[in-house]
């Protein structure tokens, strides 16, 4: 712990000679600890003073004053490798990393050949490697290059991330430095900080899986350096350098060749497709062999699910963007003509309609003999499905375009004012939560938690009973996509074009998949796959555990509604007026 200052050496008043002054503040209250800390510091100074190598900064002086100790070192114009990795967009070039790695092998050879005892650096990592303005490496911070204190009583601590397994056991060998160098190269080429990954998990993250541009040769060198058993690694730094030089020779000629990304089998053919008269922005519903879908041409269409044959259409006086619900032989759906329409599922004849005071974008949900839906009139409506009378309506204070989710004997719904409301079956507010912008998506609910996205660019996990925020996940942009819950994962799209998969207990990202445009569609999970549309015109089928692309289907027009999967068939509508049926 301590700071490093840039200082000017006043022994040379006529020129500007810069030096680095490393300051260490001894904050330990215990005198014994304080003394040990000073001893360690002086040991570092003495060790450094005996070493002469271009990649090791020269030491000019050291001193202690009150509770501070100072080391005066050669000033290095440059940046440390960790900063370089973080500031680089994308990956560092393999050739560049290779050149640095070769220099690091040189300095390790020098240290390991030190007499009488080899010096083990013990703390090789990007933040201890400076790259000077000439592009050469300098190894800094020898603070840890001291005898590992073995036989300490009680629990011991090892440094996580770059160190090999045996270093945790108190064994420090030249081979440990080579492992750490391998880990450093791995970090530089993959941008994956090993301190944020499980220890010794490099084998699970081979270089080329993360950065497909690096050569197979360097991957082989890094994986040898990172072998679990020291005997499987390079025997010494010279051998590792030789192997790296071999890579440089081989890839020198091939460095411009890039491995093209594998594109999954194109030419997915729909089982059938059906053309409506305007854009489809809604999600279909499948029930009893029929597919129902609303369209901007004001109609609700009923098609045979197996072959897409037209059965009937029912005209409203506004666009239909809500997803129909089917209940006891009737289809329920809202329209921008302000009405909830209830029509016979077989014949398309109207049974009854229910007026609200605003266009309806929210989809109806049916539970306990009532249909629940929101309207632009600011109300959440509960209508008895048998009497077609309003049971109650709840004033949310803003337009309700979100589809209510019903679970735990509660109705959860978002508003354009950014509130998430939890209302019980009697229409009494139990709790509410304020996001920073509109909540247009529908929440996903488990017995414990409510998951909902907002245009504020956040996926919220709230306690189902009290609305307390449990965790928040920052999406790249706002979202109107409703999350899908599967196992212990939650999958959702966002306007930044990504489909995200997070762990429900911790809100940590499991994977993300990039589409070419915003994702307004809500993911549908079926068996081991997730189906999600994008405004880039594709319907994507991804493996839900890994986010790996299985296939994509191109419609050439934005997909805004969501897919539904039923009996191994995926149904989806697109803004090119078509509804498609595809084999899942």
């Amino acid at each position, binding site marked *: *712990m301590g700071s490093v200052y840039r200082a000017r050496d006043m022994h040379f008043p006529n020129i500007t000679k810069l030096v680095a002054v490393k300051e260490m503040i001894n904050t330990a209250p*215990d005198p014994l600890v304080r003394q*040990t*800390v000073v001893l360690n510091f002086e040991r570092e100074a003495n060790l450094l003073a005996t070493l002469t190598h271009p990649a090791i900064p020269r030491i000019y002086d050291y001193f202690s004053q009150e509770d501070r100790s100072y080391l005066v070192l050669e000033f290095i114009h440059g940046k440390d490798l960790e900063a370089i990795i973080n500031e680089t967009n994308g990956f560092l070039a393999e050739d560049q990393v290779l050149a640095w790695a070769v220099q690091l092998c040189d300095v390790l050879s020098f240290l390991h050949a030190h007499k009488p005892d080899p010096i083990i650096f013990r703390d090789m990592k990007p933040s201890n490697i400076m790259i000077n303005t000439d592009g050469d490496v300098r190894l800094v911070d020898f603070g840890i290059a001291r005898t590992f*204190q073995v036989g300490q009583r*009680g*629990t011991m601590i*090892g440094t996580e991330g770059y160190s090999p397994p045996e270093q945790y056991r108190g064994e420090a060998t030249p081979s440990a430095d080579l492992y750490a160098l391998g880990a450093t190269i791995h970090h530089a080429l993959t941008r994956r900080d090993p301190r*944020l990954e499980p220890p010794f998990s490099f084998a699970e993250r081979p270089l080329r899986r993360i950065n497909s541009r690096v050569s197979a040769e360097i991957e082989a060198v890094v994986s040898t350096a990172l072998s679990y058993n020291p005997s499987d690694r390079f025997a010494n730094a010279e051998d590792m350098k030789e192997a790296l030089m071999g890579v440089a020779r081989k890839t020198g000629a091939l460095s411009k060749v890039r491995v093209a990304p594998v594109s999954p089998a194109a030419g997915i053919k729909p089982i059938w497709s059906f053309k409506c008269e305007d854009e489809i922005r809604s999600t279909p519903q499948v029930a009893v062999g029929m597919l129902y879908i609303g369209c901007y041409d004001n109609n609700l269409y009923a098609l045979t699910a197996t072959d897409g044959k037209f059965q009937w259409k029912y005209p409203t006086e506004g666009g239909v963007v809500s997803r129909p619900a089917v209940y006891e032989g009737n289809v329920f759906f809202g329209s921008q003509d302000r009405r909830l329409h209830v029509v016979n599922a077989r014949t398309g004849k109207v049974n009854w309609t229910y007026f609200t005071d605003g266009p309806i974008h929210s989809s109806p949900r049916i539970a306990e003999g009532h249909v629940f839906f929101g309207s632009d009139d600011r109300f959440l409506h509960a209508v008895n499905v048998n009497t077609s009378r309003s049971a109650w309506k709840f004033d949310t204070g803003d337009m309700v375009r979100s589809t209510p989710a019903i679970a735990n004997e509660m109705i959860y719904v978002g508003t354009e004012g950014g509130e998430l409301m939890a209302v019980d079956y009697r229409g009494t507010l139990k*709790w509410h939560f304020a996001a920073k912008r509109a909540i247009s998506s529908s929440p996903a609910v488990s017995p414990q938690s409510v998951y909902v996205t907002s245009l504020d660019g956040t996926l919220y996990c709230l306690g189902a009973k009290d609305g307390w925020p449990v965790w928040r996940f920052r999406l790249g942009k706002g979202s109107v996509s409703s999350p899908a819950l599967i196992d212990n994962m939650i999958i959702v799209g966002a306007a930044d074009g990504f489909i995200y998969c997070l762990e429900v207990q911790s809100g940590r990202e499991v994977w993300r998949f990039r589409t070419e445009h915003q994702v307004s569609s809500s993911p549908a999970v079926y068996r081991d796959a997730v189906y999600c549309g994008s405004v880039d015109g594709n319907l994507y089928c991804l493996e839900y555990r890994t986010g790996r692309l299985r296939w994509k289907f191109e419609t050439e027009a934005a997909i805004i509604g969501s897919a539904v999967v039923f009996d191994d068939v995926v149904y989806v509508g697109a803004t090119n007026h078509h509804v498609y049926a595809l084999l899942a």
Partner: protein
Amino acid sequence: MRERFRKFVAGLSGKSGDKATTAPLSEKQIDSIVRQQENTNAMQQLIAATGQSVGKQREHNEDSVLAITSTLAGMSNNVPFGLYVVADGMGGHDFGEVASNAAVRIIAGHVLRKFQPYLFSMPPEQPQDSLQEIMEAAIRVAHEAVQKDAPGSGTTVTAALVLGDQVTIGHVGDSRAYSVHPSGLVEQLTKDHSLVRRLEELGHLNKEEAANYPHRNVLIRAVGQGDTIEADIFTIPFPHGSTLMLCTDGLWGVVPEDVILRSLVDASSLARACNNLVAAANAAGGPDNISVVLVQMIG
């Protein structure tokens, strides 16, 4: 309660005469009826107890423990609130107690400050940060403080923040959180950040080798160690009907699960259960400091 109910059921069937054949209610049915009745008017609340001992072979206690149990007056109903932490300090120079002590105090201070507007202002305001963000920040602040106050040392931290019926756990190191169900199910909720567990996970050690591994005490993560700290943070439903147990390796490392279970089930109160557990660890040699927190949700 259950006995009373059984008598009541027996009384009913007695009245209807010997010849009447009534299928007796199964244990499960009785349980569910009893539970339903208990739920009708009981308010949810937490009870907790702690136990600690220096053990039989150490001179210093490097463990620290904290238990705060309360009920928050909420908007519509009262919400159980609890914060429980165990920490096992380590590092040379007998500096472990400074580390564990600092970590526990700082985590408690940070969490309580975040809840202050909810606890003491009218109308109550929910914290701006999520529960997991509060926990994460608390551990990060503790990490920085340990680095400053006790350089070179470190501490494990296993903290449980209970709010309503969810518990948010923050965890670094090899202290543990368990859910112990009286039926015998002892479930470890946290994963040790230890070398031995990592090696086991990678398949380099089998269970038996792991149990006899000489470096069982080596951690790969500790509060106060390393540039950055990454805690495991997750939220789970409070294990209803079970006991939430936080403890240091002075307990779980020496007392087998069946003894833990028995110590809990046989005790007349949570405080006694803590005593039993500490006594069991000392009876097994007490090689390390022992700390335990037990928490139950009633209602």
